[in-house]
């Protein structure tokens, strides 16, 4: 980092934290139960530290930013290929999240 200088406040803080040894190693998410997102960044259900405080929440605020490029494909439908119309009724997820459907027809029990 000798030849690099932070350009904004956040980068500056991060650098200071790093120098003070306050930055933890990011560990892969392995704390979740079966079916949880394992290693995505940011995580969906359980954060890298095994809690939820570092999750990207409220998840409605950033839903399409993260799910549309299919970062959470196991938990949020990807509207790119598989479920094109999933978000159509909820253009602003923070407000319209109630209009989002749950994918998987539960009336087709085997």
């Amino acid at each position: 980092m000798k030849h690099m200088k932070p350009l904004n406040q956040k980068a500056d803080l991060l650098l200071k934290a790093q120098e003070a040894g306050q930055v933890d190693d990011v560990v892969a998410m392995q704390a979740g139960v079966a079916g949880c997102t394992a290693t995505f960044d940011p995580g969906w259900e359980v954060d890298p530290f095994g809690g939820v405080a570092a999750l990207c929440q409220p998840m409605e605020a950033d839903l399409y930013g993260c799910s549309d490029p299919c970062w959470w494909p196991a938990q949020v439908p990807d509207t790119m290929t598989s479920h094109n119309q999933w978000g159509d009724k909820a253009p602003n997820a923070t407000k319209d999240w109630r209009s989002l459907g749950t994918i998987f027809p539960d009336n087709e029990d085997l």
Partner: protein
Amino acid sequence: MKLRYSWVALGLLLTSSHLAIAAAPDGAKLIENNCAACHKQPDGTYSRISGQRKTPEAWQMTIQRMRRQNGLELDANTQRLIVQYLSDTQGLAPSETKDLRYALDRDPAAQEVKFNNQFVEMCGRCHTAARVALQRRTKDEWRTHIDFHVGQFPTIEYQSLGRDRDWYKIAVETMVPLLAEQYPLETEAWTQWKAANKPDPVGSWVVSSSIAGVGPVFGVMTASPKEGVLHLEGNLQSLDGKTYPLKGTVNIYTGYEWRASVSLGEQAYRQILALSEDGKNLEGRHFAKGQDNLSTVFKAAKQGTGTQILAVYPENLKAGKEQEVVVIGAGIDQITTSSAKAIEPLSKMEFGAKVKVASQAVGASVDLTVGESVAKLPVYDKVDRLSIEPPYAVARVGGNGSSTPPANVWFQAVAWLNGADGKPNTEDDIRIGKVNPTWQLKPFNEEAEKLKDAEFVGKMDEKMGLFATAEAGPNPERVYSTNNAGNMKVLADYEGATGEAQMIVTVQRWIDPPLR
């Protein structure tokens, strides 16, 4: 004509003389009519289809995807019959699903620990590793499967562990041979299972299970065929004597995969069970529809197949006391005991018997024996510690006018004695079974305390250990209007003995396939 269990229809159970068998629907014909246009190859096989075997759930997911994305049109009954045919002819043997039942019966607390890093990084980072391990394919099929993923989920290559290494090369050159070796299309297990006599689901089953927030339930359900459909009917009851009538239908796939839709009491329930190869047992989980986070273990023993104890309640005896015990199982005619004092028979029931037994010295157990089946009731004076089941749980916010129901959690406490060494958590500890403690929630750590998780995540029923999750959606009362998520410590106290578990309360699942 509707036909719900085609193994039977296919004649594999024709030996069961009491079955009136209707004509089998021609599964091959259905595939020809509905799949051939896109899949049939010059040699008569079907591209993609012929090279794989999988579970009924996996076949169903494939067909649903065909409908969703490729314009396939099918009515519900035809879809089910195709799933039936494919599961019967290209399914998995019992031994191939044995260690992965948690993915099929939706065990909410299952943690996948047995898959190696390479496998988890490649496959288990988006879905359960079991979803893969519950499939068998030719090498070519596994290879095609990789390219299918790239096409279906193009961003797979720039997710973490996709963008930061040569993902595609590893997938093709390392994973394909590995998958082909570990999960090949042709196996001895499948060849044998195809030829084996299949267990007969028809008959009376003694059931031992539980209902979240209620406790143990037990009783008898009978499976009987009527007009090509296998009907279930019976009654379960809880320890306080409340009855839960059970009625519905069951489909049998691949000769042993039991999938039932029933009403239990006033709720719609699903049973996802496996018939044992010898036909004597059923085991899996059941849950109220839409509430699989509250699923519980469901066991049954077939009447007329020998003697077998499924459960005893209570599971333990307090020292110096005589205790009434309900013994649940099949063929419970005569119970003998290891106790110096003989058992006093109280009543014989359809699902077992009620007896009175005397306790013994602390640390010993009173053994109840029926045929070759033994139930051990540990005798205790004072409980040393509790363990909590599940020790780690995930609840999910839900409701609040949305399409996702809350995913609640039911905790149960198991009491332990420290054993001869007097130390907790050592090999000689004695499990004395489930007890009913009082329950409470505490923040799991400082972070949770700082974010006041305890105020927002939901409520714990302090008597039943049933946690009801708070509502979904951004909460303006929280910092950043964050969700009602949190990291909680679940504490149980029984006569001074304590135990704790961790519960993550997190966001909902917007997509929840039969195989996660």
